[in-house]
């Protein structure tokens, strides 16, 4: 699927395959993880913090370089800003608890609750991948095909 509707593509975010993880959909842990516990105002505040941090990195990406570690480009970081903005406007999407540059010129949005963790990775080539971990084991890997936005938020 190729889409420029970022919000629609990312509705899958926050919905791990609970059957594959052996959790009933009504299981409280799964419910909490899917819908989050934050109010919408708190959720928006957190997304705004994420966007501010990404913008700071985009202004000076070379600060993220190190031995054997490639910094993400400003273009990729601003792409992540656009995606984050779209996610912020999509009501049930919880904000990441951690945002991290990868060692390979990418970025990660990560959140976790109990034994479940979900990582949205922006790879150096501009593609995206969503990974679900259960008890720290990778159990699901889903590529997301997002068209780069033509402008940034």
């Amino acid at each position, binding site marked *: 699927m190729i889409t420029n509707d970022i919000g629609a593509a990312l509705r899958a975010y926050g919905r791990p395959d609970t059957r594959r993880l052996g959790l009933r959909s009504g299981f409280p842990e799964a419910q909490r993880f899917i819908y989050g516990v934050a109010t919408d105002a708190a959720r928006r505040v957190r997304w705004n913090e994420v966007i501010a941090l990404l913008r700071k990195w985009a202004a000076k990406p070379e600060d993220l370089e*190190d031995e*054997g*570690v490639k910094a993400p480009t400003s273009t990729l970081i601003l792409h992540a800003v656009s995606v984050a903005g779209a996610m912020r406007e999509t009501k049930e999407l919880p904000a990441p608890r*951690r945002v991290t*540059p990868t*060692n390979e010129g990418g970025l990660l949005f990560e959140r976790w609750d109990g034994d479940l*963790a979900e990582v949205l990775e922006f790879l150096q080539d501009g593609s995206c991948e969503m*990974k679900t971990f259960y008890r720290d*084991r*990778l159990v699901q890997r889903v590529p997301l095909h997002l068209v780069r936005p033509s402008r940034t938020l």
Partner: protein
Amino acid sequence: MEGFEPIDDDEVLYRRVLEVHFDRTVRATPDPQAMRPIAQDVDGLSLKRARYWTAEQVSRGRPGKTYFVAHLRAGSVRSLLVATRTLTLRPDDPDVPNSEHGHCVIPELVYATRGSDESESFQRLLASTVHEVEGPFRTPA
């Protein structure tokens, strides 16, 4: 030979962590990226033995930059399990050129396969196993 002998289960091992890969206010353990092999980790994830190095020595990186040092217990590293696979710890071989006193690698975690499901699971497990993070340490400019 001292510094190249087998590693005991109760030994502490150090891994340098970039400043952006650890935030105490978010989580007590570093980001799994800190345990992801980098280009230099060709023959395994590089660790230093606390018997022979101080955390401050291990923290030294690029001039002017800040780092943390993650502490891992050897026995905990060896007890990690993904499917039926476990991790091992290999001290440097003193007969090999460029071997380093007090250095070891986890040979199952190499740069070439860093993106495999198994490697990513172990990276995450290793980060969760960290029992202490020291720092920040600033490398002098």
